[in-house]
């Protein structure tokens, strides 16, 4: 590993100052939450920081505040803590389940919600050092290459899929992303936080180099809300989603008042499918209706040469997850 300096900030403003100081002196700063994935990329020399800002040193950013109006989750809350949090398990189930589906216990014990939302793609071209868009280059090697795990929605010019499990859950819960930066704080909706390659091919979100995802807010669910996360993997643990669905249904007895359906593993950002949500809104959910939602969810899919299987797979995941959620009661 190339040598670097670890810097322990006292608090968030100090972290931002340290980042700025590094950058203004021409040094590359990397921000570590749990740091597992970052260290892997440093070892592979995909990232070569001079300074590593260790956010674990911060106090207080690892708390979950559950209030009537909703949840406020500190960015440094570990995935393990999220998955065990009783209120989250009960009322924001999709998030607990998504957090629990990430990697392994060892990673969830240090991995943070902010780190999971902001992790870099696991596209095997990017991870193997190909000079692709995500590495600052100007091509996507998957287009004519091994694209079995790549995007069927929203691709171009890069066809990575967003690697996070918690991100689709957060989008489905209509979370707001609190960003701290030297020019002040920003509070972004999912649609502004996550960016498609056509907006910025090198990045997956709108965080600037000197900004930090400080916390996440989730509005309190309305009565009758139930949610779940379904992740399809190609072994039973420790892979990223081949396809996943985060689904939140607001039910009034057996009628669905509204639905939010967000897909993972299929697009460069958590992929919301509003047309499929509209299929469910105001309806009694039957197997036929769920199947229709599945059909509609993939209507716009544009598979590459080797990932067409994701289309029927996504369709099935949407249909079955909706039905499972209804049956769960």
């Amino acid at each position, binding site marked *: 590993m190339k*040598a670097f*300096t*670890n810097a322990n900030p006292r608090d968030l403003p100090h972290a931002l100052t340290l980042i700025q100081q590094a950058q203004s002196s021409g040094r590359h700063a990397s921000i570590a939450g749990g*740091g597992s994935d970052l*260290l892997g990329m440093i070892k592979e020399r995909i990232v070569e920081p001079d300074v590593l800002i260790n956010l674990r040193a911060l106090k207080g950013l690892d708390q979950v505040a559950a209030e009537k109006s909703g949840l406020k989750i500190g960015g440094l809350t570990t995935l393990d803590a999220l998955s065990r949090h009783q209120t989250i398990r009960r009322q924001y189930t999709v998030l607990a389940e998504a957090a629990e589906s990430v990697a392994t216990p060892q990673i969830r014990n*240090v991995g943070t919600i902010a780190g999971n939302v902001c992790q870099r793609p696991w596209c095997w071209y990017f991870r193997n050092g190909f000079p692709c868009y995500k590495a600052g280059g100007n091509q996507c090697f998957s287009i004519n290459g091994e694209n079995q795990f790549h995007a069927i929605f929203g691709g171009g010019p890069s066809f990575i899929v967003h690697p996070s499990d918690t991100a689709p859950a957060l989008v489905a819960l209509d979370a707001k992303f609190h960003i701290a930066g030297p020019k002040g704080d920003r509070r972004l909706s999912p649609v502004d936080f996550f960016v498609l390659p056509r907006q910025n091919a090198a990045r997956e979100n709108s965080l600037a180099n000197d900004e930090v995802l400080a916390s996440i807010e989730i509005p309190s669910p309305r009565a009758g809300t139930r949610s779940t996360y379904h992740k399809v993997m190609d072994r039973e643990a*420790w892979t990223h989603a081949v396809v996943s669905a985060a689904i939140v249904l607001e039910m009034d007895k057996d009628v669905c008042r509204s639905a939010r359906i967000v897909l993972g593993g299929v697009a460069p950002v958590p992929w919301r499918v509003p047309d499929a949500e509209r299929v469910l809104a105001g309806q009694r959910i039957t197997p036929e209706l769920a199947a229709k939602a599945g059909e509609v969810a993939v209507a716009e899919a544009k598979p590459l040469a080797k990932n067409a299987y994701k289309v029927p797979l996504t369709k099935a995941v949407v249909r079955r997850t909706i039905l499972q959620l209804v049956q769960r009661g």
Partner: protein
Amino acid sequence: MPKSKAKGRISRRKFIEGTGVAVVAATAAPAIHAQSPPETAPGVPHTAIRVTVNGKAQRIEVEDRWSIAEMLRDHLGLTGTKIGCDRGECGACTVLLDGKPVYSCSNLAVWADGRTIQTVEGLARGDELDPLQHAFIEHDAPQCGFCTSGQLMSAKALLNSNAHPTREEVQAAMTGNICRCSNYNRYVEAVLAAAAMPAGKRSNSTAGRKRAKQGGLS
């Protein structure tokens, strides 16, 4: 004939009494650990940290880029923690950091400042093996043994928080620990067996002696 210089405080006699294993000696080659103080490379950022390892408070100068695994293995002589992938993919390096299992290859030593680490070398209490170690031996959980320390630490963390896990809970808790010998069934059996040992007898060698007699082993 050079005798085995088994590290730690566990005598072979105790091991044998505790497990009902026949008194067989395995004679290892001469000791191959050079004792050298931790040494940081010149010009490389380094930091003095305080860390409690297996109950012993230490102050150690670490390079900022050292992983916990590197610090333990190369600079504290605790080579029971193995590095199988160095990328958080296999679990051979699992240690407990403030009681929770983590990949010591994927955490920097500087991040452990002020915290406690438990490694496989810290599992036994004095001369007494941990119940998990007993069960691992009796159920032939380690084959090549390279993943074993990590499996033990994940299992230890599980039993610390859930004394009587189900089979599925054991599999879930240990799923971050790959075993290429694929002795997964044995690992799970062993953890369940350790959990089933009555609390009073868990670290008691009498049980082992009794088993030895019943088993008719010489």
